[in-house]
């Protein structure tokens, strides 16, 4: 191929030709180290943002749970604080009376038994809550029962036990914190 620049001597060729190569290893290493620092800083920032995001979502979750618990307690624990005879002619909100407590052996029946009972009410609610969780996977009802169980139980029932389900543990933990905050606040 004809190439005019390969055979045309001109001082411009000398100016435009690349300078002779040098050993740029020191520069290469130095610049690499600096760019790596930028990468590290960016990674640390990302990790920090991730941790902050986790913390935020945990706080939002805890807040939502607290709201749910206090809402449920407001709805369901009101009748449970009354005697069965007093509450029998009042609406129960989320609960509706089942077919017949004696006719089947469901978690709902167990809850009604707890509701109607005078003694060991807390324990019966707890059992109902466990059954909602294990047999029916109904977390909403289990939450209601556990809340009632704690409302009707003694103060020492708030202590977390290894027999507790994760939901009950979470409710107990929230209650303990609530109590602690109330004490600190007033």
């Amino acid at each position: 191929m004809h190439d005019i620049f390969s055979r045309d001597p001109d001082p411009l060729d000398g100016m435009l030709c690349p300078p002779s190569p040098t050993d740029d290893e020191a520069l290469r290493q130095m610049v690499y180290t600096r760019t790596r620092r930028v990468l590290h800083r960016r990674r640390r920032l990302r990790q920090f943002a991730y941790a902050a995001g986790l913390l935020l979502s945990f706080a939002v979750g805890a807040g939502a749970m607290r709201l749910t618990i206090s809402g449920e307690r407001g709805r369901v624990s009101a009748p449970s604080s009354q005697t069965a005879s007093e509450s029998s002619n009042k609406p129960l909100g989320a609960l509706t009376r089942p077919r017949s407590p004696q006719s089947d052996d469901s978690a709902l029946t167990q809850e009604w038994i707890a509701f109607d009972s005078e003694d060991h009410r807390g324990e019966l609610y707890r059992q109902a809550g466990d059954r909602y969780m294990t047999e029916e996977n109904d977390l909403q009802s289990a939450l209601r029962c556990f809340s009632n169980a704690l409302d009707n139980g003694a103060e020492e029932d708030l202590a977390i036990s290894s027999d507790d389900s994760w939901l009950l543990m979470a409710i107990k933990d929230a209650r303990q914190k609530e109590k602690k905050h109330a004490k600190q606040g007033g």
Partner: protein
Amino acid sequence: MRADDRVQRERELRRAVLAGEELAWRMLYDGAFAGLYAYVLWRCGGLRERADEVTQETWLIAVRRLRSFDPSAGSFAAWLRGIAVNVLRNHFRRETRRARRTRPLDAEPIAAEESREQAERIAAALAALPPHYEAVLRMKYLDGRSVADIAAERGESPKAVESLLTRAREAFRQEYLQSE
């Protein structure tokens, strides 16, 4: 390497670097360092100190702005060259302002001073060229490519490339002489 393979490879490396993979950065860096340095040195008329500074600044900008690198729009090397051109332009402006304001008290030996002056003028002339002239001179002189090769890449005839080279060289000559 085919263009698709290059795009795919650079896209993966970019993604990995943005995810914090240091090794991916090392690969990009090692693959492009020598080419970028040679280009910057050429654009600096052989002034190594300036080339070192510009190269360093270019890489630091590149690592900070890697998110804006789009492999489908051009190669990593071309993207780096684009950054380097901007850095060079800024350097050149700063140097010009400084030269107007001050004159060095400890003058260099005459030969060294002349050589430096010539390098400055080459750098200034290259910086003043329109991008298409600069690109064709780079392919010819820095990359050492033949007219036929350049023509194939640009999708033009060898005659058109020869003509473009002639005009680019003439523009360079004019810029060089004007800076006298």
